[in-house]
């Protein structure tokens, strides 16, 4: 099969003349300060209980030699995104130049099909009330800060990251820092078996973190208790 036929028609990686933005997250540098999460919230007035980016952690090792491993998460702006394929009205679409997976809020009917399709839980439903923004009751997610990037700024989370754990740039540009980092380091992506070709690359991420956690082996009842406690805390 020819190279052209082997890629899905909407892929933008290694396409000549097209930019392909990507983020590299160096987990060795992440200190779990959550500044990225806060910066993102401030940038978008993201309501309580939902997040465009979030930083879960896992405690690894045996006492007293334990440490926390952080794994910043966000939409992977997949090269072959199932959320785009699954949206019945084209409200979720892929920007040809840059590969951003974006949302047309005025078109979204709120069927949550894209949420079900995303293997990474990167999408969420905006609640009915927000503080400053009239956009409600539609699905939202990280946009790789499209509005900032088109003005030659980096995403808010990258801008704020104190450890420079997040690096952003054009992967199709061989001189960019992300190209260099992806070329020179062993990188991981989340759930590569899903075939979505994610464009958030991790350096130093543990396979135990990028897969389903062992927490899921706990009794469903116990998980349900924790889940409801979490919801009680976050629901508004």
């Amino acid at each position: 099969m020819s190279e052209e036929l082997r890629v899905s028609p909407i892929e933008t990686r290694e396409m000549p003349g097209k930019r392909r933005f990507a983020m590299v997250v160096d987990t060795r540098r992440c200190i779990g300060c959550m500044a990225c999460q806060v910066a993102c919230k401030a940038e978008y007035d993201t309501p309580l209980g939902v997040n465009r980016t979030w930083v879960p952690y896992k405690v690894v090792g045996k006492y007293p030699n334990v440490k926390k491993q952080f794994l910043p998460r966000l939409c992977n702006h997949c090269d072959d995104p199932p959320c785009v394929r699954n949206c019945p009205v084209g409200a979720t679409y892929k920007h040809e130049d840059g590969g951003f997976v974006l949302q047309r809020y005025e078109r979204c009917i709120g069927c949550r099909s894209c949420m079900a399709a995303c293997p990474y839980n990167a999408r969420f439903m905006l609640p009915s009330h927000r503080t400053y923004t009239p956009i409600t009751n539609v699905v939202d997610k990280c946009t790789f800060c499209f509005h900032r990037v088109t003005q030659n700024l980096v995403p808010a989370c990258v801008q704020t990251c104190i450890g420079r754990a997040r690096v952003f740039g054009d992967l199709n540009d061989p001189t960019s820092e992300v190209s260099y980092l992806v070329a020179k380091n062993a990188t991981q992506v989340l759930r590569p078996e899903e075939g979505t070709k994610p464009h958030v690359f991790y350096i130093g991420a543990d396979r135990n973190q990028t897969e389903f956690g062992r927490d899921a082996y706990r009794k469903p009842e116990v998980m349900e208790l924790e889940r409801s406690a979490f919801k009680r805390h976050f629901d508004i």
Partner: protein
Amino acid sequence: MGDYVWFHDVSWHATYAIYFFVIGICAGLSFLSYGTWRTEALRPLREKAAWGSFALLVVGGLLLIGDLSQPLRFFNILNPAFLNFTSPLAWGALNIVAFGIASVLYLAALRQGNEVRGKLLATIAALLALGLPIYTGYDLTVHQSRPVWNTPVMPVLFVALAVASGSAVGAILAGANQAAQKLLREYMLWSTGAVGVILISILGTTNYGGAAQELTFMLMTTGTMGLIFVGIGVVAGTAAPIALLLAPFGRQQMGAVLAGVLVLAGGAALRYALLMGPQQLQTLY
């Protein structure tokens, strides 16, 4: 543990499961109404099944629209400029609308007593009705990352469930009509048998899959979800009605009606568990 688990919300809530149930019976009744043109024994059910199917289509449509976070935008899904044909939902919307139109025309033909048009429209409506469980199955099948959902037998399972639920309602509607009861008993038996076989194959492949599959199998077979899925769905709603229909009591009207009630309860439980169960694990990721 001490680990920081981030709980996400499930994408589709129980309304969707009720919709699956309602639209399954709707399709089943449409098959039954079509069957009355081919089999004389079912004749008394023709109008009842057609009206029942239409009423459930309205209920199902309202449920589907009400479940959208932007219900008034449901017209977007019928806008040719917006339609994305890679999405099963887009096909489903067109299917529902086409089925609705065919149902209205069919009911009009029945009222006029136009036999030729009635038979033709019954065939068209039944073919479009077949699309309803198929697309609901595809709605789940396409989710590559979800164990249980992502299996090619899902649309087949939904078709079998539709036939089982439709014949169960038919058995309740048929009353003391011996000839109709006999046929409906056969339909119920074979379709519920097919549901059982498909469930076994789904459970088998899920339990022998990777970590996500294995965990989903655990979630679906233990605790409250286990009670709904295995207890009501598999044991009470699939195995019990088969046993009942095979026993001499199942040949009597009461037996067939009881089996019908069990099949309906099982159909509701299975649809709920198949929708919600595989979403649980994802909320932890």
